[in-house]
């Protein structure tokens, strides 16, 4: 908690109130305790209070429980990551206490359930311990059914007291969340909340109050990355999708299945991963860009059909919510190890487009961008998001929906003549026309995975194979020129350039800020367009002594992560080196800085 001012209160028991700019709260328990719900409430409250918020969570990949955490960082200023160290640890069990104490800042507050946690004397010297009989008091508050269901809401009440949160807004959020058929549910929740809020916290010496956030121009919306991506696809005009359940992609298909019918669309759950990409390609061929997606092994299964999309030049959006691999790997952890399969997966020369969103907000806009690239360039586009973005909750400015929502319904205006693979177009960009379109010449296009002539009929001609391969490549080279100019975060010259992609943007930018504050010449470069790479990177690299590519993947056999390898292959620049890790967790700012400083002090 960064304190700015403290208001002294008269001695005599009333805790002091301290103004803070931000706080990192880690909630640890078991997954069935509803700790995600506490985090969700805090995040949404922050969003409604014009504060920035970022969350981080882990859930076990088992169905009925296991240790789980939710970390929420709320700030009055810009919040870029979920925070390296927690200011407060709320723990429900001994294992949550022992397992997460190390994530707490020295001198931080441990708020524990005294019914389940026995504090350790040696830790009591290092951290402020506040014990509350959360389970017992919850049972008491609700009326003694003997079950402690609702203890998460009781704990939320405690936090509301400690952080002087807006009770009126929280009450409203609780009513919205639990309001339904059975009125006793809301009543019980509010009883729990009030029980916690009114509980006297004797062990605590001070409470905290957030500085008011900056007034934003538009309202803030609060959601996780999977939701933002799915709503982005709807805004983009996507009305058909097909998929197969797999963690952490499933939320997207569930949301689209639920929402698309309102817009006249549907999302189909298929028998397998291959069927789902095939069905989505079928619908895209039908005239309107469709979506499929998956995670981990599901992406491997889709690569053959993806290659068909490249060859046949049919637009499609494929979402890859990356998780720990290979094989079944770590389904509920984050990793950026699908860059290679996204850019190169499949047989043959099959160039396709890969974009990676960097935040929850960016996921929304990236979806729209992906759809438009797919249409304009008649090509499959992969959105390479990851588990960290998928599950974290952020507050961001509500998009101007009237402006961003687009109509991409197919156009069946008859044409005089049409060649799906017209070679006379110099940049190789041809467009797909949907079945149902009359071609007055009577020559109809065949869309095919066999090497073909301009009308889509098979050919074994070496010359045509060369020409068509060039066409498929050149249109993506053209696309690279359409990308916005790359910009560094911080000055465009210095000692160290930290290059990142995807969800690492926040921690990298925070690392840059922290290093700059200490006078170190560190800048950041975020690459959103991964295939094709944007032009002009070499000019950015020229301004720095060291170029470190920060990635959540392994350094591989030759010492470089997947993006670092790609950049080295393209620029042959030996200054490009990697900062990698494969622990399945997001970057801590400190990790990045420590590694960058060490690497910079070593010879290239």
């Amino acid at each position, binding site marked *: 908690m960064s304190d700015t001012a403290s208001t002294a209160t008269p001695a005599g028991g009333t805790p002091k109130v301290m103004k803070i700019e931000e706080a990192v709260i880690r909630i640890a328990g078991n997954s069935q305790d509803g700790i995600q719900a506490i985090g969700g409430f805090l995040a*949404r409250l922050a*969003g*409604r209070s014009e504060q920035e918020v970022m969350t981080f969570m882990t859930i076990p990949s088992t169905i009925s429980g296991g240790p789980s955490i939710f970390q929420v960082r709320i700030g009055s200023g810009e919040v870029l990551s979920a925070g390296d160290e927690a200011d407060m640890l709320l723990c429900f069990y001994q294992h949550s206490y022992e397992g997460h104490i190390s994530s707490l800042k020295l001198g931080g507050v441990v708020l524990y359930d005294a019914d389940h946690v026995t504090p350790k004397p040696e830790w009591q010297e290092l951290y402020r311990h506040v014990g509350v009989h959360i389970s017992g008091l919850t049972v008491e508050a609700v009326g003694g059914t003997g079950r402690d269901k609702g203890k998460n809401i009781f704990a939320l009440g405690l936090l509301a007291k400690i952080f002087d949160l807006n009770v009126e807004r929280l009450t409203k959020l609780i009513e919205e969340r639990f309001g339904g058929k059975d009125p006793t549910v809301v009543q019980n929740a509010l009883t729990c909340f009030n029980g916690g809020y009114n509980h006297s916290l004797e062990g605590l010496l001070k409470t905290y109050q957030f500085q008011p956030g900056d007034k*934003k121009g538009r*309202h*803030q*919306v609060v959601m996780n990355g999977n939701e933002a991506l799915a*709503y982005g696809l*709807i805004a983009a005009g996507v009305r*058909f999708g097909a998929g197969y359940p797999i963690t952490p992609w499933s939320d997207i298909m569930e949301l689209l299945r639920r929402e698309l*019918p*309102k817009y006249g669309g*549907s999302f*189909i759950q*298929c*028998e397998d991963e*291959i*069927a789902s990409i*095939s*069905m*989505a*390609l*079928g*619908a895209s*061929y*039908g*005239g309107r860009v469709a979506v499929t997606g998956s995670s981990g092994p599901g992406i491997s299964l889709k690569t053959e*059909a993806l290659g068909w999309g490249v060859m046949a030049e049919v637009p499609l959006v494929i979402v890859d919510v990356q998780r720990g691999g290979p094989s079944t790997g770590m389904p509920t952890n984050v990793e950026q190890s699908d860059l290679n399969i996204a850019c190169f997966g499949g047989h043959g020369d099959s160039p396709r487009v890969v974009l990676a969103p960097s*935040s929850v907000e*960016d996921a929304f*806009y990236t979806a729209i*961008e992906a759809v438009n690239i797919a*249409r304009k360039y008649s090509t499959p586009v992969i959105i390479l998001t990851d588990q960290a973005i998928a599950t974290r909750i952020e507050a*961001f400015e509500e*998009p101007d*929906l*009237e402006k*961003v*929502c687009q*109509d991409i319904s197919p*156009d069946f*205006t*008859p*044409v*005089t003549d*049409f060649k799906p693979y017209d070679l006379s177009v110099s940049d190789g960009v041809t*467009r797909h*026309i*949907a*079945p*149902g*379109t009359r071609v007055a010449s009577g*020559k*109809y296009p*065949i869309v*095919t*995975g066999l090497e073909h002539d301009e009308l889509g*009929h098979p050919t074994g001609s070496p010359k045509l194979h060369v020409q068509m391969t060039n066409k498929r490549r050149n249109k993506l080279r053209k696309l690279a020129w*359409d990308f*916005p100019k790359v910009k560094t975060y911080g000055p465009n010259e210095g000692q160290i350039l930290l290059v990142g992609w995807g969800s690492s943007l926040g921690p990298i930018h925070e690392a840059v800020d922290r290093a700059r504050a200490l006078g170190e010449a560190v800048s950041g470069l975020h690459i959103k367009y991964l295939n094709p790479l944007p032009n002009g990177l070499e000019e950015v690299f020229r301004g720095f002594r060291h170029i470190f590519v920060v990635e959540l993947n392994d350094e591989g056999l030759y010492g470089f992560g997947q993006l670092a390898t790609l950049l080295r292959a393209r620029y042959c620049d030996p200054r490009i080196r990697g900062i990698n890790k494969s622990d399945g967790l997001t970057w801590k700012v400190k990790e990045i800085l420590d590694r960058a400083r060490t690497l910079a002090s070593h010879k290239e």
Partner: protein
Amino acid sequence: MSEIAIPFAPLPRTGAIATPAEPLPVIPDTERKGLTKKEVAADHPTWCPGCGDFSVLALYFKLIEKRKMVHEKITTVAGIGCSSRFPYFVQAHGVHFIHGRALPFASGVSLSRPDLHVFVFGGDGDAFSIGGNHFSHTARKNIKMTYCVMDNWVYGLTKKQTSPTSPLGFKSKTDGWGAVDYPINPMKQAIAAGATFVARTTHTNPNHVLQMMEAAMDHDGFSFIECLSECVEFYEGAFDASNPRKGGVFNTVPAEHDVTDEMAAYKLADEPFPGRFGIFYKNSKPTKNTKEQEIISAHQAKVKGLKDWEILKKNFDRMK
């Protein structure tokens, strides 16, 4: 992070390259003449002379002509195999997809474009081996389309390997001593999977093929035809027992057979080769297309009068 640019503005809705200067006249489908064979024939087929697939193609042309279908509303989809070359030979919108996955592709077309006639052509390997999973699921979901499997009991394009329908003892390049795996019975499989139209025909009886195609096309749901189609190169004479001109017998489904009786259909399918020809099973069940449309209608009724962005706005308002 609020200033996120969208460099790709929405495209104008003109999708094609050679758009006529003057808009082409709109001719109502009812006033258009049936297409002639010349107008629907595209590339000359690459099949070997004498291949049974020629007959299926000729009858598909006949179907298009007889039913006065218009070019642009026909969508022919195929996977991989000799028979799957089909779309190249038809002058209409066509798709040559990957091996075994023609059905899910066609499902995507059918579900998103109810105005099109979706026909899928393929072979026994495509349907029952690599695409076996899709066959069962497309059948059970009852997605509207016509699927004609040209069954030749052998892999032809890859030159004589055992197929899932090759009978026991068939000598192929992968079973020089004769096939040892029990073959699939396509009819039984289709019935068991829940297909709502299951018919069997053979390329040597053109009138019957056309009859089955018409009935399949008129069926509202997933209609499946197994059409025996001889591979003269790698399995000559396979179906002679079903061809009266070669001394065989062409037995149609008995007149008293109840096509809605699943067990009776299964029994018919169990008869030894040459078995029966005709419609084994036919049942009227709501299609996936209809069910999805019902879901859409129910949901759209709740947001009636709202523009798309206003529907989305309602969701976003709840996330504040």
